[in-house]
């Protein structure tokens, strides 16, 4: 089945009929009678017997197991309240941190204004969110900078099986963490970070395309005057 042919790749708007042809309603759709409609603006896509509408826009809504870049905005005696660029405030409980935190002593470990990488532990039906930092990959961020892109572009920044972000890292040697919530932390030399940020903006703005990967590669080759280092997957 040719999934990437132009006829199949269609921008749909809310309320638009998605030709079912025996497909089941996937994400971003709703059903009325026996017909499937788009629920939000996005790309109509068929996958494994489902028709989905991949979102082109919208605020980040947290899901369990997402890794996010957050910012502490308030603290209580046993938790820190974090902004994760979402409509829902996300508390990080002291018991979910890598430290032994005495009651009332939270400010010693994280202060208002600190930037962190955390995981979404749980989201319940009423959209109460809990974060966790109880994993080695999580923790407080030092140095570097944070940029924000629409979270719907995050899959493109990472690429199929991580190939896009690997390419950016290979060329620029920049340390990067891409949060599911559209926030990206970068650290490296100013020039290299500048190139990485530019590459990300190309992806964000859907720069003129041969294929998006080719466009980004062309920019990086031009910036570094060489081919990519042999792909390692990680730096």
């Amino acid at each position, binding site marked *: 089945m040719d*999934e*990437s042919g*132009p006829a199949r*790749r*269609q*921008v749909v*708007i*809310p*309320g638009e009929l998605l030709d079912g042809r025996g497909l089941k309603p996937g994400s*971003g759709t*709703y059903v009325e009678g026996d017909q499937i*409609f788009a*629920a*939000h*603006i*996005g*790309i109509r*896509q068929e*996958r494994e017997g489902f028709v989905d509408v*991949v*979102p*082109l*826009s*919208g*605020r980040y809504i947290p899901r369990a197991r*997402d*890794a996010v870049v957050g910012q502490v905005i308030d603290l209580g005696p046993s938790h820190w309240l974090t902004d994760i660029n979402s*409509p*829902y405030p996300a508390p990080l409980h002291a018991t979910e941190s890598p430290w032994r935190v005495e009651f009332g002593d939270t400010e010693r470990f994280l202060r208002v204004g600190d930037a962190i*990488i955390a995981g979404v532990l749980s989201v319940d039906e*009423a*959209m109460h969110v809990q974060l966790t930092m109880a*994993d*080695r*990959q999580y*923790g*407080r961020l*030092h*140095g570097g900078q944070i940029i924000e892109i629409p979270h*719907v572009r*995050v*899959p493109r920044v*990472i*690429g199929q*099986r*991580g190939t896009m972000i690997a390419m950016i890292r290979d060329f620029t040697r920049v*340390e*990067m*963490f*891409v949060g*599911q919530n559209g926030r990206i*932390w970068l*650290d490296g030399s100013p020039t290299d970070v500048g190139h990485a940020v530019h590459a990300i903006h190309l992806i964000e703005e*859907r720069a*003129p*395309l041969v*294929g*998006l990967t080719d466009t980004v590669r062309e920019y990086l080759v031009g910036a570094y005057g060489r081919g990519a280092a042999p792909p390692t997957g*990680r*730096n």
Partner: protein
Amino acid sequence: MKDKEHNPKQLKLIDANGIRLDGRRYDELRPIKIEAGVLKKADGSAYIEWGNNRVLAAVYGPREAHPRHLQDPAKALVQCRYNMAPFSVTERKRPGPDRRSVEISKVISEAFASVVFAEQFPRTSVDIFIEVLQADAGTRCAGLTAASVALADAGIPMRDLVASCASGKIGGVVCLDLNKDEDNFGEADCPMAIVPRTGDVVLLQMDGHLTEEEFHSALDLSIKATKGIYQLQRQALLRRYATAAQEGEEPPRADIREPPSEVNDL
């Protein structure tokens, strides 16, 4: 719908050949242009020129609803604020909401509340802002039409867009889309808004004097016009997201749970 004015000049709003003062026939819309995604900060936005109306619409949301005690634990609040800039009308309007703006805000909020899938976002609000920059009657219809586009641009899930239009009666003739003079000196005005796919009417107001038959003619004119208006809304959105259609297959979301990166500074 403005307060009806006394017509001192006895303006002939529609002549014997059915031609109105601006050259339109009874069933003709004023020219409309819509552009989506015109503001940077808002989550979604749209700008509309409808005859001499110029209206900007923007959406923030879903976002945390404030004040807390007004939050709905089951769904998002859908709130619209309609406002006219002081320079949007011939006689300067003092800044701030007046009773007319408050009423219009309310009926537009209700129109959108019936199409937005609010249950997906408990405890939040979807805030819609309509700002009239230049007014020539029909601003609530123009604003609602633009706000629909702004909501879609913001990625808000909805059953459908909402298209809006008004019809009325001038010089005894039921006509589509009254401009300011026609609204001021005509006999009736009837703004409405409709869900294009289902035909559900989500906004309906009327003032003036119409027989039942005239009312149905007016509604009919408006409903027909909304088909074209819907296409303009749709085209505005497709233009905005045109490049999106060119990319290859979307990477599945499962790919993007990042392998732990070498953030060894932690």
